[in-house]
């Protein structure tokens, strides 16, 4: 590389940037020359900035009448260097000297006058707020956000109900294709993953129950534990969380990207109601699919428990199901299934609503997909807790 070898020998010759002060008398008053030399580029300004203050002190002590900034030795000047020279000139100006540039190359002067013309009113920093005020402000903002969310979810639920009512009155407007499509994607394709997760969790609950109840001599009751738990809670929650993560996020992403590309607006101008076209089929599909998935999930939970029971309780397959038949009553099953359509509505509404809130940027899409999943799971769990209390109060 010929360029490289030449470079090193040139290196010594190119000056590092510096400022030097010279004094000469002119008509009884002292004129100072500040001689700038070397390369004044963005790579060097940090080193130069420190030299300015010392220079000013020296100037003041010398009782200067005027100051020239001599640029004849400057090898290279870029905006950063020019900015620094202007800083120096500004400093001189503010201390009553009248600085002038001399011997600069033409392009330097163009650049300097360009910089000079820029009024660099650096915006005052945002008012500094203390840690505690900041914390309180954050709490306030978050609370406000939660209230806003509640309001918008309620509003969306209302709008959905109205649209649903209209579709009921005019059933030919219902989008069957879309409905079936979403049943396939949110339901059929979720079956393997729901099965797998519920199978493992069922086995784990049985295993843990067997081990920990053994110390009370009650390890056999782990079958009761699993039977009630999986039918009432685990099947519902696991499936809802899985569906919120899989399909709620997909709803938000799909609707959000349509929002980003103004497809939703285009729909409105074409006389299509996005609520009817996009939201109703999705929410209805979820309401059909989630109970079915929950049923499958609960059964898989029991099967997983049965496998674990074989290992840890020594209960064989038929004995396990015999006992399970006594425990797993229709009551428990219904208590679980009752919750699923509500969970489906929550997941569907949150997913679609977050999609509708997406703004113009990809970042906004990403953050809304995340918050869609988080909010849906959160609300599903809250709902589940409320149901658990209510159902035990009414004795189911």
């Amino acid at each position, binding site marked *: *590389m*010929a*360029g*490289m070898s*030449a*470079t090193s020998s*040139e*290196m010594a010759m*190119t000056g*590092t940037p510096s400022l030097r002060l010279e004094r000469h008398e002119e008509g009884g008053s002292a004129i100072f020359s500040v001689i700038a030399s070397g*390369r004044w*580029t*963005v*790579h*060097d*300004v*940090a080193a130069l*900035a420190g030299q300015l203050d010392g220079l000013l002190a020296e100037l003041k002590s010398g009782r200067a009448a005027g100051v020239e900034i001599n640029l004849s030795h400057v*090898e*290279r000047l*870029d*905006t*950063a260097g020019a*900015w620094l020279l202007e800083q120096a000139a500004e400093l001189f100006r503010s201390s009553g000297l009248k600085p002038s540039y001399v011997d600069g190359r033409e*392009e330097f002067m*163009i*650049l300097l006058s*360009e*910089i000079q013309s*820029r*009024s*660099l*009113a*650096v*915006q005052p920093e*945002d008012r500094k707020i203390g840690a505690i005020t900041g914390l309180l402000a954050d709490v306030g903002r978050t609370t406000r956000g939660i209230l806003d969310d509640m309001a918008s979810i309620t509003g969306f639920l209302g709008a959905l109900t109205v649209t649903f009512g209209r579709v009921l009155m005019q059933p030919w407007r219902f989008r069957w294709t879309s409905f079936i499509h979403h049943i396939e994607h949110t339901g059929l394709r979720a079956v393997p993953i729901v099965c797998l997760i519920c199978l493992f969790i069922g086995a784990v609950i049985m295993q843990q129950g067997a081990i920990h109840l053994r110390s009370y001599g009650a390890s056999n009751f782990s079958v009761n534990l699993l039977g009630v738990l999986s039918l009432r809670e685990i099947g519902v929650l696991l499936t809802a969380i899985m569906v919120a993560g899989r399909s709620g996020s997909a709803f938000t992403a799909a609707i959000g990207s349509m929002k980003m590309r103004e497809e939703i607006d285009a729909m409105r101008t074409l006389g299509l109601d996005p609520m009817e076209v996009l939201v109703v089929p999705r929410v209805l599909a979820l309401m059909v699919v989630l109970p079915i998935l929950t049923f499958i999930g609960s059964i898989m939970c029991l099967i997983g428990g049965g496998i674990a029971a074989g290992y840890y309780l020594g209960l064989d397959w038929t004995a396990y199901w015999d006992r399970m038949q006594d425990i797993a009553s229709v009551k428990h099953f219904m208590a679980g299934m009752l919750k699923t359509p509500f969970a489906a509505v929550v997941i569907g509404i949150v997913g679609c609503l977050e999609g509708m809130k997406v*703004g*113009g*940027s*990809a*970042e*906004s899409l990403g953050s809304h997909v995340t918050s869609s999943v988080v909010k849906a799971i959160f609300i599903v769990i809250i709902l589940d807790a409320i149901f658990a209390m209510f159902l035990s109060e009414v004795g189911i």
Partner: protein
Amino acid sequence: MQNGSDTQIAKSQGDPIIRVRGLTKRYGAHTVLENLDLDVEEGEILGVVGASGGGKSVLLRCIIGLENIQAGRVEIFGRDMTAMSDKARFEIDTRWGVLFQDGALFGGLTVLQNIQVPMREHLKLPQPIADELAHLKLSMVGLAPEAAGKYPSELSGGMRKRAGLARALALDPEIVFLDEPTSGLDPIGAAAFDRLIRRLQRTLGLTVYMVTHDLDSIFAVCDRVAVLDGGRIVRTGTPDELRRSPDHPWIESYFCGERARAAMAAT
């Protein structure tokens, strides 16, 4: 201090600042650029034109090293970019700036922070100086000081391009690559952007490599135009030369059509 003008002195006067020889770029069986030659002289504004999908952007990406090339060499500042160590490349990176089509600002950072990214990465500047310099760049590209604290998603397309240009200029590069700088801007905004490029090029002594569709900007700012057709540069010349003697069907339809006449009349 490590790079600066050293290599520039080593490079003999009058050599092109960018020299592309025999560049070939294929995607699978599809050849986009074939045996392409191109020179960019120091201090000029070169416009690269060509049909949509003709490889203008690919050529730009090949030159700045974002794409691997199958054959040929790219020399910038007289140094072969294809056979360069990563460390040398890192240093060369400070000597050019790139403006991508939609600004390519980092969405998680404010405009001011975006402009400071190259400063932080390559220089050790005290924060106050970095702030002042970033504000200076912002003002040079014609953005109001209020834009400094905004996020890219809060800016209009034209403002994003200006902010992207400010970031490209953050380290006072010698070459600026612009990918369709005026696309998506309204005619007034596009004309203002053209003037901005011209003015910055004059004050900072930049070399500008500009991919464009826009006939107005070609006639308004380009010193020279290179026409890309069929995977190679078929002609270079001043916009006027190309208009007077097209000698090529694509150039003729491009430079001698209705729109070209209007653009010509406007300048």
